[in-house]
C-alpha cells in the first residue's frame, strides 16, 4: 500500500531516559488505571506508554466521596491514591497487563515516607515490564507524603535519593506546580539522582456548592486538571527545561496533537495525557493519529529532532 506523503514524512519516534518510544504520547497516572479498561476499547500498544495508577506499599481506599467535581474546562479530584498495594500490582495487575501491552510501562510510585517509596521501588525492580519509576512527590490528596515532599527541595531530594539507591531503572520525579519556584525543586531532584522529571501534577483547587454552601469535595480541596491548566503546565516545562539537563515529560491539560507539539517546543521529550482520557476514552489514540498531519502542517519532520533542539 502506498502511504500518503504526510505519513511517510512524519517520524513520531522519540526516547525517554534511554528507552525508545514509538511516539511521545503516554497516558498519565491515575487516568488509565493499570490499562485494563482501555485495553477493552482499543489496542493500547499504539501508545508510547502509560504511567499506571499511583501505587503504595499497602492497599489504599483513598478519601471519602464525593471526590470528583466538574469545572469549566477541567475537573477536581480528591481520590487520594486508591490502589491495591504494590504486592497485588506485581501479582495480578502486571501479569494481566502483559497480556495486552508489550511495551515498557511507567510505574507511579507513592508513599508516606522515603522508606515507603523505596519499598515500592524495590518490589518493582525485578518486573521487566516496568521501564521507568515515576516518583510521585506531588499528589495533593494525601495527608502524609505526596505534595508535602514535592514542595520542599530538601524533602524532594531525600525521596529521590532513597529510590535511586534501590533501583537501576530510570527515576523520574513527578513535580507539583503548587510551589513558588518549580525550578528549585527540579534542580534538587536532578542533584539527588533523578534521570527525568514529569511536570506537572494537579493544581490545588476547590469548588463550593451554592445550594449547600459547602465544598463539593468531601475533602474540601483537590487537584485541578484538564485543558484549563495547559498554559500553567507549559510554562513550568519551559522553565524547568532551562534549569536542568535531564529530560522532561510534559503533563497537564493536553487534549490535542497541537498541544503535544507545543509542549515539545517548550522542551518536553515526551508528554502525558491525563484528564482527557476520562471524558474521551479514545483521546490518546486520536491524538496519536492526528500527530502526523499536525506535524506536516507546522513543518516538523521528526519529533526527536524537535525534542533535541
Amino acid at each position: 500500500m502506498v502511504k500518503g506523503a504526510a505519513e511517510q514524512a512524519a517520524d513520531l519516534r522519540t526516547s525517554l531516559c534511554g528507552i525508545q518510544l514509538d511516539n511521545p504520547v503516554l497516558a498519565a497516572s491515575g487516568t488509565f488505571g493499570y490499562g485494563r479498561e482501555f485495553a477493552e476499547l482499543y489496542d493500547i500498544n499504539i501508545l508510547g506508554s502509560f504511567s499506571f495508577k499511583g501505587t503504595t506499599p499497602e492497599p489504599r481506599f483513598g478519601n471519602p466521596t464525593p471526590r470528583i467535581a466538574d469545572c469549566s474546562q477541567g475537573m477536581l479530584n480528591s481520590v487520594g491514591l486508591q490502589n491495591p498495594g504494590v504486592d497485588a500490582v506485581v501479582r495480578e495487575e502486571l501479569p494481566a497487563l502483559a497480556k495486552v501491552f508489550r511495551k515498557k510501562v511507567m510505574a507511579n510510585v507513592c508513599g508516606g515516607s522515603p522508606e515507603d517509596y523505596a519499598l515500592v521501588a524495590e518490589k518493582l525492580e525485578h518486573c521487566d515490564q516496568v521501564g521507568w519509576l515515576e516518583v510521585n512527590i506531588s499528589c495533593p490528596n494525601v495527608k502524609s507524603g505526596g505534595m508535602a515532599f514535592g514542595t520542599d527541595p530538601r524533602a524532594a531530594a531525600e525521596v529521590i535519593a532513597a529510590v535511586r539507591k534501590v533501583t537501576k531503572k530510570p527515576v523520574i520525579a513527578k513535580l507539583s506546580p503548587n510551589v513558588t519556584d518549580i525550578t528549585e525543586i527540579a534542580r534538587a531532584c536532578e542533584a539527588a539522582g533523578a534521570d527525568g522529571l514529569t511536570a506537572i501534577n494537579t493544581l490545588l483547587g476547590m469548588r463550593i456548592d451554592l445550594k449547600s454552601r459547602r465544598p463539593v469535595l468531601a475533602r474540601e480541596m483537590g487537584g485541578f486538571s484538564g485543558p484549563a491548566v495547559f498554559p500553567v503546565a507549559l510554562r513550568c516545562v519551559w522553565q524547568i527545561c532551562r534549569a536542568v539537563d535531564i529530560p522532561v515529560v510534559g503533563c497537564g491539560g493536553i487534549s490535542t496533537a497541537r498541544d503535544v507539539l507545543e509542549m515539545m517546543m517548550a522542551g518536553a521529550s515526551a508528554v502525558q495525557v491525563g484528564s482527557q482520557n476520562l471524558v474521551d476514552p479514545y483521546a490518546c489514540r486520536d491524538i496519536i493519529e492526528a500527530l502526523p498531519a499536525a506535524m506536516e502542517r507546522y513543518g516538523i519532520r521528526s519529533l526527536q529532532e524537535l525534542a533535541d533542539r
Partner: protein
Amino acid sequence: MRNDIGTIITNERIAAGTYEMVLQMPQNQEVRQAFGQVRPGQFINLKLEGHYLRRPISICDWDEETQVLSIIYKVVGTGTETMSRMSHGEALDLLWPLGNGYDLSETGTGFHPLLIGGGAGVPPMFGLCRRLIREGAVSPTVILGFRRAEDAFYRDRFEELGARLILMTEDGSMGSKGFVTDAMKALEKEEGREYCDGFFACGPEAMLRAVDQAAPEGIPGYMSFEERMGCGFGACMGCSCKTRYGNKRICKDGPVLERREIIW
C-alpha cells in the same frame, strides 16, 4: 461500552423540573447488537456543551427494533439545565451502555418481583418492569414514591405494562400519603412475608437503606446507587465505595449492588 452520537427525537417536561428525552441512536448492525446487550439499571454518559465532565443518566427504556432509547432526568444543576434546553434534532455524544445493571438471573417464570423507585430513581424501574414481565415474572408490584403530585410521572405507563402500582407521596397529594416503606409494611401486613420473592430499588440513599431494612430478610435485593463520577467507565476511581466484598466502583462494578454486600 460504545461511543455514539444520538439525535434528540423529543425532550419534554413530564413533571415539576423533570424531563423525558428520547434519543434516536444510529441505525446500524453494531448499534443493534449493542441494544441487544443493554440491561436495565445501566446508564449513559453524556458530553454537554460548556461542561468538561460527562453527565451520567440512567437508561429508562430502550427499543432494539427502532434503536431508540429514553432517559428521564431532573434539573438539579447546570448540566441537567443545559440538557433541558436542548430540542428535537440536536445531537449528543454519549458513552453507553455503562455499569452492571440489575441482575435478572434469579428472576424468570413465576418470580414475583417488587420494584421500588423514589423520585429521580423511578426511570430505571420502567425498563426493568417491562423486561421482567416479558421474561415471565408474576405481575410485578411497583411502589413509586414522590414528594408531591407535581413531581409524579409515568403512573399510567407502569399501569399500561400491567404492573400492580402503588403510588405514595410525602404530602398525600396523590396516591397514599407516606413513604415507599409504609407501602412495604402495609403489603407485608396484608399478604404476609411472602409478598415478593426479591426486590429492585433505585432512589436516594436514605430511601434505599430504609427499603433494605423494611424488606423481608433472606430474599435477594438489588439497589442502584448514585455517586459523583469522573469517567463513568472504571478508570479514575472517583466513585469508589467499600463493600463486604472489597472496594467497588459505582460506575463499573455498580451502580447496582446486592443487599448482602452493602455496608450502610
